[in-house]
């Protein structure tokens, strides 16, 4: 019953080894195969078993961009060549986009940006939330009140609107690294309050227990009490918060990039890939441009599974 976590691990691993999993360089444009449909490899030819191969595509109607598999030709798949797991000229496992770029290769490459930004934003939000919540829980009184009012306000803010305004205050075209760091930072800035509130509740509860009193009696200062004794007690709650925030962050990147305020087009992220799906015509005629949406759904599904399993594990 660890399928959620296993699925997440698999996705993270795929993102880590994406250059190896990609069939083509993610930015290469196959000019003769714009909007090519997904192709499946075959293993049976002329009634017998055959090494895996694909039928290359042939453009039969340039106007409607209709392709047909060329049954007469076989292109064998090459394994472990050119530093890739598998590759074949003219093979597009999940089709191509408007510029003839391989969707599968961009999907695994884009996972790095989309998941990386969510990971960094999560770490940021958890750090801010843990410190703010911890300080509020230990200090109590006026500090507690002020910090909690602040967190309430940020919690209620329409987060996506704030994110859009923050992003739009910078130049539209920025290097990918700048976008990465900025968007992750902005996400952390709108995401911390829920963490802070949970941490504060745990810390305030734990601070009234005997072991906290013992630590104080042994001469622990407030900082030591908080970071050495109370925050570790909040660790399960913080982990759950991370799983709650991650899907929202992945989605925020996708939304920002989808509307053109995130990563910029040559970069592959799940959001920039979804720009291909901006017109209903493209969605209807070339539905494989929606693959990144399915990838997002799969990751969020895995997170939800992990969350459920976690809930069972810690008895909630």
């Amino acid at each position: 019953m660890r399928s959620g976590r296993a699925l997440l691990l698999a996705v993270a691993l795929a993102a880590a080894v994406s250059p190896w999993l990609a069939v083509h360089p993610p930015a290469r444009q196959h000019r003769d195969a714009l909007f090519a449909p997904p192709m499946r490899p075959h293993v049976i030819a002329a009634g017998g078993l055959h090494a895996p191969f694909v039928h290359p595509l042939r453009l039969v109607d340039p106007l409607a961009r209709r392709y047909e598999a060329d049954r007469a030709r076989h292109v064998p798949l090459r394994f472990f060549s050119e530093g890739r797991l598998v590759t074949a000229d003219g093979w597009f496992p999940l089709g191509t986009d408007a510029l003839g770029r391989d969707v599968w290769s961009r999907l695994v490459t884009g996972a790095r940006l989309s998941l990386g930004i969510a990971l960094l934003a999560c770490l940021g939000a958890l750090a801010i939330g843990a410190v703010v919540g911890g300080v509020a829980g230990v200090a109590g009184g006026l500090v507690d009140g002020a910090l909690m009012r602040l967190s309430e306000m940020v919690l209620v803010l329409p987060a996506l609107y704030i994110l859009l305004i923050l992003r739009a205050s910078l130049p539209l075209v920025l290097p990918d690294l700048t976008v990465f760091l900025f968007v992750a930072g902005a996400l952390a800035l709108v995401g911390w309050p829920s963490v802070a509130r949970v941490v504060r509740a745990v810390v305030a509860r734990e601070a009234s227990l005997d072991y906290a009193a013992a630590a104080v009696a042994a001469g622990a200062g407030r900082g030591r009490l908080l970071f050495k004794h109370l925050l570790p007690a909040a660790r399960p709650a913080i982990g759950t918060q991370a799983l709650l925030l991650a899907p929202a962050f992945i989605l925020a990147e996708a939304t920002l990039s989808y509307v053109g305020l995130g990563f910029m087009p040559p970069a592959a992220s799940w959001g920039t890939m979804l720009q291909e799906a901006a017109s209903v015509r493209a969605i209807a005629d070339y539905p494989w441009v929606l693959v990144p949406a399915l990838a997002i759904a799969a990751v969020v599904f895995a997170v939800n599974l992990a969350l459920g399993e976690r809930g069972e594990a810690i008895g909630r």
Partner: protein
Amino acid sequence: MIAFVLRRVLFTFLLVAVTASAALLLARLAPGDATTELVGENVSAGARAAERARLGLDESPARAWARWAGRAARLDFGASWRYGRPVAPLVAERARNTLVLAGCALLLATMVGIPLGVASARENDRAFPALVRLGSTLALSTPSLVLALLLAWLAARTGWLPTGGMTSAGAAAAEGAGVLSRIADLARHLVVPVLALALPVAATLERAQSRAVARALEEPFVRNARARGIPEARLRWVHAARAGAGPVLALYGLLAGALLSGSFAVELVTAWPGLGRLMYEALLARDVPLVAGCAAAAALFAGLGTLLGDLLCAWADPRVRHA
């Protein structure tokens, strides 16, 4: 109770003021300005400077803010630079469209999520609750952006439903078409965006309600009621459902923000002329007064939603009033 309401109203007011001010300042800080689009690129420096002066772009941000705040306090939010229309009616019209979308979605989510949540609580061995749980885990995993894209594909593929906009092109011209057919047209356009927005929310509500009822079913008062011979169905649908209402009502306050974020994605995918789209267009055009107006409306929407949620909670559970 009155002190509680007053405090929450003040909080909402503060929220709107802070959000709108921050939006104004950030939109001014943005590189490039509205004059590029308004007067074009090939004009003399003098003409551009005159336009900048007319819009107040040559002032310091602090002065511009003070001027804007002074007028906004009298509910005058200035005129949009791009549309040349006063901001308030423009924003109100689009906010109404978003409200229609969000309202329908919330209603649908409540009508689907709450009964399913009550029905599926704590019956782990039956097929129906397992099916509901699987369904809501799936729905939770398809955020509005993803769902809107998938539904747009379905609608475009089958041709059953319009994929974008709020009215058919012909309907606006045919004023004499009658109210009923206009409503029917609107309803057809509502299906895709409302479903995309409502399903994840319905799943959230279903999960919360299910957990709350499951907890309530284990409490002593339910056991006592069972011992008194109250039928199991009544225990679940009346006693436990009512006891579990508190945590679910608390969730409603937070849904306003989720609905706003979700509706932004849905509006962009399905070309729904709502607040999110207006805000997006204003940001791209560097239309500072309009950005501030949209941000104020969004904050008001989120603030009032939270306020309503809090009031519902306070009404259901008196202990909240003193928190």
